[in-house]
C-alpha cells in the first residue's frame, strides 16, 4: 500500500514530560485517518511536529519517501501538509477571498487582481458544494462557514495532507453533516486527511483507518471496519471502562433550591421561568443559538437583563453581577474554559483559590497560604487532577484537567447551585466519566445542578428533568423517564409544540 506519510520512532520531550514516546505508524495516500486518544495522549504534539510547529527530539517523518525537517508551519504547508486548528487563523475583518489568498495575492500590473481571485475562490467553494457570501467579512459568517474557508485556503495552497484538529467541536449537527460531505468530496479528489476527534461515532462515519495514542505511546492502528466503539474506548483508556455514564438514581429532594421568575433579556424575548430542586440535575437541551448560555449568563448577572427575579431557598435575592451570584452560592462553569474559566498564565493553586481567598484570611487581611495550599491540594486529589504540582501553570494541563480546575474552583466556594455549560466539550471519555460521577456526588450532597449540554446522550443519562429551549424560550420541561428519548428532545428543540406530540 502506498504511504504518503511515514512516522518512524518519533520522540518528543518537554521539560518533565515525555509527550511522544517512540511513535511509529503510516498514513496511506488518500485515506481519512482518524487519530484518537485522551487529552494529553500526544495527538496535538504529533500534529504539531507534522506541521512544523515543533521539532522531534528523535525519530523521523517521511513525506512521499523523503525525510521532512520543517522549521515552521509555512514550510510544512508549502510541502503539502496543512493543519486546521480549532481556533481559526482567519483575519476577522477580511472577506473569504481576501483570506484565502492572504500572503499570495494575484497581481496584475502591480495592483491586486481581485477578479481572478474571486473567480478562483468561487470555483473552489463550488467544488466543495457550499455556498458562502464572498463579500462579507468572515467575522459575520458562521463558525462552520469560517471553517470551510480555512479548509479552502489550505487546499488551494496544497492538497497533499490536511490535518483537521477536532473540526466538529464547535459545529451543530447539520454543519457537521456538511463538513463530512466536504471531507468525502476532498477524499474523492485524492486529499489525504488526518482527523482528530473525541466523538467515536464520527470515526465510524467518516474514517478509513484509526490510530490511537495513549500517554505519548502508540497503541494501535486498525481498519475502522474491524473496530467497535467498545474496542476503541478500550484502546484509549487501556482498560474496559464499562459504562460511558454512571448510574443515576435521581433521589432529589422536594424543596426548591432555586426559582427563576420572569427572566427576560430584551423586549423581543418571552419570560423564562423555571425551578430546580435540592439535589436535582436539570438538563438544559436545545440547538446551538437557542439561548441556553445567554439564559445562564443572565441568571448569574454576567449580562444585563430587562427583568429577573431569583429565589434561593424561598428567599428573594438580588443578583446583578457574578459577584452577587457568588455571594448567593451560584456558580457558572462556563462553556469556554480557556477564555472564560481559567487564568491560563497562573498556577493550578491560584486558579482554584481565586474566588475563595476571602474565606481563608489571617487577621481578616492576609491570605493564609498554608490553608490555601491545603485546600487546593485536597481539591486536586478529590478531583483527580493530573498535575505535576500545585505550582504548574494551567496552560500546560490537558483539556480534561483544565476543566477539573475550573470545577475545583467552584467546589472551593461551597456554592449550592452550579451551572455547567457544556461540561464535557472537548474532553476525553475517561475525564467525562469522572465529571459525571462528580456531578452525582454533588447532587447527593444536596447541591442543585443546571447542566447545559448539546450532547443528547449525556442529557438523557445525567438529568433528572430536561428543559428544552428553542429560540430563547423554554419549549418544554420533561421528567426524564423511559418515554423520553433523543427524538423527543430534538422534536422540542426544533420548535415542536406540546399538544402536537400525541399525534
Amino acid at each position, binding site marked *: 500500500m502506498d504511504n504518503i506519510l511515514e512516522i518512524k520512532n518519533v520522540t518528543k520531550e518537554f521539560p518533565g514530560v515525555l509527550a511522544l514516546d517512540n511513535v511509529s505508524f503510516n498514513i496511506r495516500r488518500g485515506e481519512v485517518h482518524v487519530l484518537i486518544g485522551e487529552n494529553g495522549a500526544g495527538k496535538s504534539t504529533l500534529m504539531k511536529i507534522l506541521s512544523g510547529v515543533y521539532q522531534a527530539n528523535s525519530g523521523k517523518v517521511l513525506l512521499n519517501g523523503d525525510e521532512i525537517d520543517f522549521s515552521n508551519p509555512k514550510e510544512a504547508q508549502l510541502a503539502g501538509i496543512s493543519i486546521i486548528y480549532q481556533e481559526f487563523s482567519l483575519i476577522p475583518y477580511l472577506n473569504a477571498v481576501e483570506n484565502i489568498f492572504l500572503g499570495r495575492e494575484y497581481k496584475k500590473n502591480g495592483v491586486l487582481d481581485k477578479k481572478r481571485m474571486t473567480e478562483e475562490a468561487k470555483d473552489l467553494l463550488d467544488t466543495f458544494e457550499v455556498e458562502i457570501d464572498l463579500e462579507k467579512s468572515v467575522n459575520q459568517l458562521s463558525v462552520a462557514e469560517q471553517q470551510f474557508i480555512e479548509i479552502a485556503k489550505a487546499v488551494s495552497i496544497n492538497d497533499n495532507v490536511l490535518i483537521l484538529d477536532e473540526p466538529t467541536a464547535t459545529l451543530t449537527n447539520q454543519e457537521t453533516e456538511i463538513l463530512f460531505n466536504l471531507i468525502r468530496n476532498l477524499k474523492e479528489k485524492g486529499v489525504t486527511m488526518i482527523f482528530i476527534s473525541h466523538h467515536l461515532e464520527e470515526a465510524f462515519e467518516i474514517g478509513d483507518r484509526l490510530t490511537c495514542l495513549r500517554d505519548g505511546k502508540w497503541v494501535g492502528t486498525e481498519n475502522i471496519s474491524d473496530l467497535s466503539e467498545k474496542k476503541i474506548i478500550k484502546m484509549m483508556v487501556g482498560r474496559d471502562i464499562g459504562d460511558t455514564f454512571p448510574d443515576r438514581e435521581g433521589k432529589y429532594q422536594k424543596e426548591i433550591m432555586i426559582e427563576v421568575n420572569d427572566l427576560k433579556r430584551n423586549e423581543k424575548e418571552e419570560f423564562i421561568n423555571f425551578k430546580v430542586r435540592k439535589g436535582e440535575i436539570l438538563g438544559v437541551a436545545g440547538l446551538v443559538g437557542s439561548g441556553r448560555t445567554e439564559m445562564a449568563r443572565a441568571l448569574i448577572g454576567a449580562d444585563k437583563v430587562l427583568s429577573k427575579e431569583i429565589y434561593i431557598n424561598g428567599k428573594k435575592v438580588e443578583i446583578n453581577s*457574578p459577584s452577587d*451570584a457568588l455571594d448567593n452560592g451560584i456558580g457558572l462553569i462556563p462553556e469556554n474554559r480557556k*477564555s*472564560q474559566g*481559567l*487564568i491560563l*498564565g497562573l498556577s493550578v493553586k*491560584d486558579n482554584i483559590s481565586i*474566588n475563595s481567598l476571602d474565606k481563608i484570611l489571617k487577621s481578616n487581611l*492576609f491570605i493564609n497560604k498554608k490553608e490555601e495550599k491545603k485546600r487546593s491540594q485536597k481539591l486536586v486529589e478529590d478531583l483527580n487532577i493530573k498535575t505535576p504540582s500545585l505550582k504548574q501553570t494551567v496552560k500546560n494541563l490537558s483539556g480534561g484537567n483544565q476543566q477539573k480546575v475550573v470545577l475545583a474552583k467552584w467546589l472551593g466556594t461551597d456554592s449550592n447551585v452550579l451551572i455547567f455549560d457544556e461540561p464535557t466539550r472537548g474532553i476525553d471519555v475517561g475525564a467525562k466519566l469522572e465529571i459525571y460521577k462528580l456531578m452525582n456526588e454533588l447532587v447527593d450532597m444536596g447541591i442543585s445542578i443546571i447542566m447545559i449540554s448539546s450532547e443528547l446522550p449525556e442529557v438523557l443519562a445525567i438529568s433528572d428533568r430536561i428543559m428544552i429551549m428553542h429560540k430563547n424560550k423554554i419549549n418544554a420541561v420533561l421528567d426524564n423517564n423511559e418515554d423520553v428519548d433523543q427524538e423527543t428532545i430534538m422534536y422540542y428543540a426544533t420548535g415542536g409544540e406540546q399538544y402536537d406530540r400525541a399525534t
Partner: protein
Amino acid sequence: MTGQLSDKIKNNNFKELLKKPEVLTFAGLILLSLFMSIFTDTFLTGRNLVNVARQISINGIIAVGMTFVILTAGIDLSVGSVMAFSGTMLAAGMADWGLHPVLAIFFALLVGGLFGLINGTLISYANMPPIIVTLAMMEVPRGLALLYTGGYPLSGLPSSFSVLGRGYVFGFLPVPVLIMAVVYLIAYILLTQLPFGRYIYAIGGNEEAVRLSGIKVKKYKIFAYVISGLTAATSGIVITSRLMSGQPMAGTGFELDAIAAVVLGGTDIAGGRGSIIGTIIGAFTLGVLTNGLNLLGVSPYVQRVFKGLIILLAIYFSSKKKK
C-alpha cells in the same frame, strides 16, 4: 525557617531561577555596576551609591503604582502630571492657605488618589481604553497646576518641610530612600500577601474569567489606578520638599521612566505577570546607568540614546523568552 528556605533554593534549580525575567535584569544591573566600578573611581563609593538611591527614589516610587496598573494590563500616562499637580497643591496648601504640613500632605495624597479614581472609573465603568483616558489625564492636572501657579514655581514653604526631600535618618540614609523603601514594602505585601494582589495578577491574565468567578473586577481595577495616583502624589511630595517649591512643570516625561523601570523589571506589558521586586531592580538599573554615564562624562544627549537601547535590549530578551 532557614531549613525551609535552603530546601526551596535546592528545589529551584538554577535553570528555573534564570527563567524569572527580573533575575536577568538583576544580572544586568550587577554587570553594569561592575563595569562602572572598574572604569570610574567614584562609582563604588558609599556616598555615590547613596546618591544613586536618592536619585531614583522619585521614579522608583511612581513605578510602584505603574506596576499595579501594568499588571492589570493597563497603563497610566498621567503620573507625571498628577505628580506635578499634587506637588503644587501641597505647596499651595502650606504657602497660600496656611495648612499644617501634615494636613497639606494628606491633601496632596487626596488629590493624587482622586485623579487615580477618575482614571480608574472611566476605564472600568465607561470601558474606555487606559492609554486614551490617561493620555487625556496628562493634560488636565498639568493644566490645573499651571493655571493655579500661573506657570511659576510656588515657594515660601516652612523650612521644617525640607526634611522629606533633603533630610537623612541615622545620618546616612536619605529620607526619600526611606519613603521609597516603605512604599515598596507596602506594595510587596499588597501584591503577595493579600487577595487584592492576587486579583491584580488574575485580572491582567484573564479579566473575563475573573469576573465570571465572582470577583469585583471593576472595583479592583479602580484600586490599581488609585494606587498609581497615590504613588505619583507621594513622589510629588518628595520632589516639592526637595526643591522647596511647587513646580507646575515637574515630572514631565516621568511616566516613560516609570514604565521603563517596570518593564525592565520583567513585568509583562500585556499584564498578568511580573513583580514589584523586579520594578525596584529596573529603577536601580536606570539609575546606575544615568549615574555611571555622568561619572564617565558622557553627554546627556548620548545618555538618552543609551537608555533607549538598553530598554529595547531588555524587552528583546523578555519577548524572546515568552516564545
